[in-house]
C-alpha cells in the first residue's frame, strides 16, 4: 500500500514567543516493511536553524530554533510511504519465551545487541513483580513467545478501557494498570512493561493509522491522531509489531514513524519556548491511500 501522510501541528500563543527550540520525530523512518518515497517537513514561520539527523535508534530527527517573535507556529510533515504486508511467524512455532534473556545475554552479534537493549527499564517503563504476575497468566512455562504475546495483547484489549480522559501524557504505567484505562500510548507502555518483566525485549513504536478504512472495514481507534503500538522480540524471526489498542498484529494499515524504548525516546515534538503565555495546540493527521503516488496538496 502507498499512503499520503499529512501531520500538521499548530501552536497558537496568547503572548508572542520570543524564542523557541523544538526537536521533532515527524519524519517516517525507512525499514524492512516500509519505503519512504518522499518526505518534507515545513516549519512556519521560517526557522533560524533547522538540522536533520538520525537519533540513537536510527530514527530521523529534526531540530529547529525560531529566534524571531511569533504568535503561531506550524509544523507540517508530509510523506509518501509505501508499506509492505508483514509476514509474522506462525505463533506456535516461535521460540519458548523463558530462554530469551539468557540466550541474548551472551550474544554479542548485531542482532543480539539490537534486541537486548530493549529489555531493561527505560525512563517511562520500569518492570516490577506485579507486571510479572499479570503477564505470567499468558506465558506458561516453555510456551512459544508469540502465543503468549498475542494472548497478552488480547487481554489488554479486553480488560482495559479506551478512555482519553483517564490519563495524560505523563501518567505513570502503574496508574494505567491500576485503573485499567488509558489510550494507545498507555496500552503500549503497559504491554512493554509486562514483556520486559519476563525478560522479553519490547520496543515502543510511534506512527499513524489509515484515516478512513477500505469499505466494509471498521475504522480503527486512534486514526485521527498519531498512534502508538509496540514490537516484541521473537528470536529467529525478528521484531513483530502488535497493537493492543486494536488487538491485532500490525500489517499494512500502520505507518511507522519512529521507535525507541518508550514514548520519551520518540515523542513527536519536544521543545522549550520562551514567553508565549497560554497556548492552544491543534493537531491534524490525515492518512489516505495515494491515488498515484504523489504528495497530496
Amino acid at each position, binding site marked *: 500500500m502507498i499512503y499520503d501522510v499529512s501531520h500538521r*501541528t499548530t*501552536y497558537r500563543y496568547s503572548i508572542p514567543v*520570543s*524564542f*523557541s*527550540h*523544538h*526537536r521533532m520525530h515527524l519524519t517516517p523512518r525507512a525499514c524492512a516493511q516500509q519505503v519512504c518515497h518522499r518526505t518534507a517537513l515545513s516549519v512556519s514561520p521560517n526557522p*533560524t*536553524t533547522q*538540522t536533520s*539527523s538520525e*537519533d*540513537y535508534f536510527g530514527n530521523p530527527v529534526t*531540530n529547529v*530554533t525560531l*529566534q524571531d517573535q511569533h504568535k503561531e507556529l506550524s509544523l507540517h510533515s508530509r510523506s509518501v510511504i509505501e508499506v509492505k504486508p508483514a509476514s509474522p511467524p506462525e505463533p506456535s512455532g516461535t521460540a519458548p519465551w523463558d530462554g530469551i534473556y539468557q540466550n541474548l*545475554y551472551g550474544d*554479542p552479534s*548485531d542482532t*543480539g*545487541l539490537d534486541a*537486548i*537493549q530493549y*529489555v*531493561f*527499564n527505560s*525512563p517511562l517503563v520500569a*518492570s516490577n*513483580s506485579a507486571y510479572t504476575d499479570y503477564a505470567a497468566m499468558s506465558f506458561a512455562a516453555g510456551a512459544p513467545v508469540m502465543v503468549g504475546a498475542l494472548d497478552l495483547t488480547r487481554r489488554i484489549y479486553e480488560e482495559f478501557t479506551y478512555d*482519553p480522559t483517564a490519563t*495524560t*501524557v*505523563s501518567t505513570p504505567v502503574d496508574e494505567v494498570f491500576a485503573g485499567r484505562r488509558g*489510550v*494507545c*500510548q498507555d496500552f503500549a507502555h503497559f504491554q512493554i512493561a509486562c514483556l520486559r518483566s519476563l525478560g522479553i525485549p519490547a520496543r515502543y513504536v*510511534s506512527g499513524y493509522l489509515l484515516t478512513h478504512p477500505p469499505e466494509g472495514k471498521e475504522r480503527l*481507534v*486512534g486514526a*485521527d*491522531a*498519531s*498512534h*502508538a503500538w509496540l514490537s516484541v522480540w521473537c528470536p529467529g524471526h525478528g521484531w513483530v509489531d502488535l497493537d493492543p489498542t486494536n488487538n491485532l498484529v500490525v500489517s499494512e494499515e500502520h505507518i511507522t514513524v519512529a521507535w525507541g524504548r518508550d*514514548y*520519551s*525516546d520518540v*515523542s*513527536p*515534538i*519536544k*521543545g*522549550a*519556548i*520562551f*514567553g*508565549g503565555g497560554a497556548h492552544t*495546540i491543534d*493537531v491534524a493527521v490525515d492518512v489516505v491511500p495515494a491515488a498515484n503516488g504523489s504528495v497530496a496538496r
Partner: protein
Amino acid sequence: MTATRPTSKATFSGIHCRDYGLLPGIHDEMMTQDGSLREHWQGFVTGLEKMSPEGLESRLRKADRLLRENGLTYSIAAAAEGVERPWELDFVPMVLSTAEWEHLQTGLVQRARLLNAILTDLYGPKRLLRDNHLPAALIFANPHFLRPCHGMEPRDGIYLHLYAADLGRGPDGRWWVLADRTQAPLGAGYALENRVVMSRSLRNLFRFNHIHRLAAFFQAMHNGLMARTGRDDPRIVLLTPGPSAEGYFDHAYLARYLGYTLAGGADLTVRSNRVFLKTVEGLKPVDLIIRGIDAEHCDSIELRGNPGLGVSGLFEAVRAGTVTVANALGSGLVETRAFMAFLPKLCRVLLDEDLILPNTATWWCGQNGAREHVLKNLDHLAIDLAFERRPLLSKTSRPVLGSELAAKEMRAIENDVSTRGHDYVAQEMVSLSTTPVWLNGALQPRPMSVRMFLAAAEDGYTVMPGGLTRVSATSDPRAVVLRRGTGSKDTWVLSDTVVPAFSLLTSPSNAPAPRRTGKDIPSHSADNLFWLGRSAERAEDTLRVLRSVLRRLTEEIELEHDLNALEGVVRVLLKKTGIRPPTQQERQLGDTVALERQIHSLLYGRDRPYALLDTAGNLLRTAAQARDWLSAEAWRTINGFHMNAARPPAGATLDVGDSLERLDDGLQMLAAFSGMESENMTRDNGWRFLDMGRRVERARHLSGLMKSLLVAGDPEEDGSLVLLLELADSVMTYRWRYLSTPSLAPVIDLLLTDETNPRSIAFQINLMDQHMKDLPRDLILPARSIEQRIILSLLTDIRLAEIPALCQRDRRGRRAELASLLGQVENGMPEFSEAITRSYFSHTEAQRPADVVVRSS
C-alpha cells in the same frame, strides 16, 4: 577486647602522641604497628612539638575563624539561621611520602586514560560489547548511558577533563580505589581552600617539610581547558545548579580562583547552535562549559532532567562543535560502581597494560558467576543498587551491609538479586587505614580515605599533588561507614627537593594568575548585585532606626515631658518597627517593662520583620547570591555582621548598653562594607548595579521618613529634625554648616535638594542618572528608556523645587508641595527598580516545555 583498645604505645617521647591508640590489624598512616613514627611524618610532628599548647590553641581558633568567614560548606539557608557548619577541618594533615605519591600518580593517570578509552568506545563503535569484553546489559540497563551522546565525539577525544578518585589503604598497606568520580568531580575547590586556611593559620607546621604546592595543578588544568577550546581568548563558564546545591561552594571557589564566570542554566542560552552567556552587555559567546551539573539535566529537549538547571539546545550546540563541555556529556557512565568489576580486564584490552591500582573487589550481579558468589556471601558484603540513586530497602544511607540486615530484609534482597541481578552490585567491605586527628588536645587515629584530582593538561593527565582527605567520626574502619562520614583534612605530598616556602601561603587572589577571560556580568548577577546594594542599605537604615528607638525609649521615656514632645517622632519609629506604644497607664507609672520586652525581641528575636537578625540574615542570603563578585574581605564583613547579630543576648532582660554596642558594631561593619564597595571595586557595570541598588533604597527610605516627619506638625519643636538628621547620618554636616539648632528650611535643603550631600535624595537621583548614562544600552533606540525618563523627571522636579514653597503649609496645616515631591520619589523608586529589571535582568523569560499536550492516542 574492644576495637579501640591500643595494642602498643608510641615509643617516642612526643607529648601529643603518647596515648595514640593504634587499632589492631589496621594500617596506620603515621605509626608502624610497633609504635615508631613513620619517617615522612617526622617533619609534621616536629613542627607540632615545637608549638606551645597556647600557641596552638590560638592558631586553631584563627583557622576556625577563617573557615567560618569563608563560609566553607555552609549551606546558605543554614547559615542564615545560625546553624553551625557541618564539615570540620582537622588541622592535622594527611601526609604522603614522595615514593608513595609517585606510585599513586602513575596508577591514577593510567586509570584516567582507561576510563576515557572506555567512554570513547562505548559512545562510539562499542567494540567492547561486540568483542564480549563487557556485558551489553551493563550498558543498556544503565540510566547513565545517555543515548543522545552516542557519536558526539569530543574534541581531542577527551571525555574526562577532570577526574577524581576516592582512595583507601587496606591492612596490608596497599592502596585501593574505592570510587571513581567522572560525572562532575567535586572537591578540588575544597582541597584548595583547606590548604589556604592551613597555610595562613598554621604556617609553622609547614616549615619542616618540602610540600608540593597546588597552584601548578590548577594552572595545568586551565591550560588544558584552554587548549580544548581551540581559541586564543576563550570564554569559559562554570555551570552550577546554584547556591542551594551541595557543590556550590566548590564551584564558586574554583570559578573565582580560575577567573571563570559562574553561571546557572538560566544565564545561558543557545542561539543558532551556539551557546551564549546573557550579560548586561548582551549575549556573549561561550567556548567551554565546566559542567557542575549531571548531564541528565543539561538539556531538557534531549533528556528528561530538571529543565531549570540546564540549557535547552546544548546538545545540538555540542554536536555542531561550537562549544566544549567538560566533562563531556555522558561521562557519568563510568562512575557506575559495577564497572570496577571489569576494569582489570578492560585495562589489558584497551591499553595493553596491567591495572596498577586495584579496585575494591566488586561483583555485578548481572553475571551468573558473580551473582552466585554474592548470594553465598551476602552477610559479609556491602550491597547496593547498581545504577539508580534511590534508597535501597528504604534505608537512608547506602550501600547496606549484609551483616546488618534483618532476616526478612535479607530474604527480600536475595529474591531481588536472583530475579533482577543486573540492578545490583556488591562490594567487599574494605578496612581502611587510620590517620591521626586532633581530638581533645591529643592525636587519635581515625579511618580515612583520600579524594585525588586529575586534569587533562595539554600533554596528558596531571594529578593534583594533594587532595581532600576525609576522616570518619568513629574508629570503625569499614570503608562504607566512612562514606557516611564527616571531617576533612589538608593533604600533604612531600617533595625531595625544596619547594619555595612562600608558595604555600599564596592566596587565590595573588596566585600566579591563570589568564583571566574577562569579567562578564551575567544578567542574574547584575540582578543579585542590585539587590545586594538594596539589602545593605536597608540593613543600615534599619540599624539606624533601631538605634534611635533604643536611645529615645530607654534613655528618655521616664521624662514625661520629653516623651510628649517626642510623641510624633516615636510614633513614626514605632510604626516602622511594629512596636506597640506604651499605654497611658504605663506611661504615667513610668513602666517600661512591656516596651523593653518588645525591643528585646526586636534585637534578638527571629522571624520578625525589622528585627536585627532578620535583617542580617536577609543581607547574608543576598550576598551569598552575589558571592562570586565579592572580595574575601567584603564577604567576611557581611558574615561578621551576621555573626554579630546572631550572638546570643547578654540576658533575658534588655541590657541597653550591650544592645547599643551591638548596633554600633553592626553599623560600623556596614560602613566597612560600603567603604570596600567604593574603594575596592572596579567601576564596572557590576559595581554600577550594586551602587544603584544602594541609591534606590536610600532615596526611598529617606523620602518615606521625611514624609512622615515633616509634612505635618511642627518639626522644629517636636524633635523631628534632629531625629531625621540622625537617621540620615547628616548631624555632623548640619552642625558644621549651620552651627545652630536645626530649622526646617536648611534641613529640607540638606536632605532633599543639596546635590553635594551624599546622603541627600538629590545626590542619589543624580548618581542614578550618571549610572544610567554609563550602562550599556541598545543604541538603536533613539528615545530615552523608561528608567532614564523616571530619573530625569525626578531630578528635574527636585532641581526646580523652591525651598520656601516646600516649607509652606496649606489651609489644613500640611506641607502639600513637599508631600507631593517626596511622594513622587517614594513611588518613583519601585518603578525605576522594575524598569531596570525589565531592561537588564530579564531578557530571560522563563522557559517552559512545549510538548505537554501532544500525545499519541
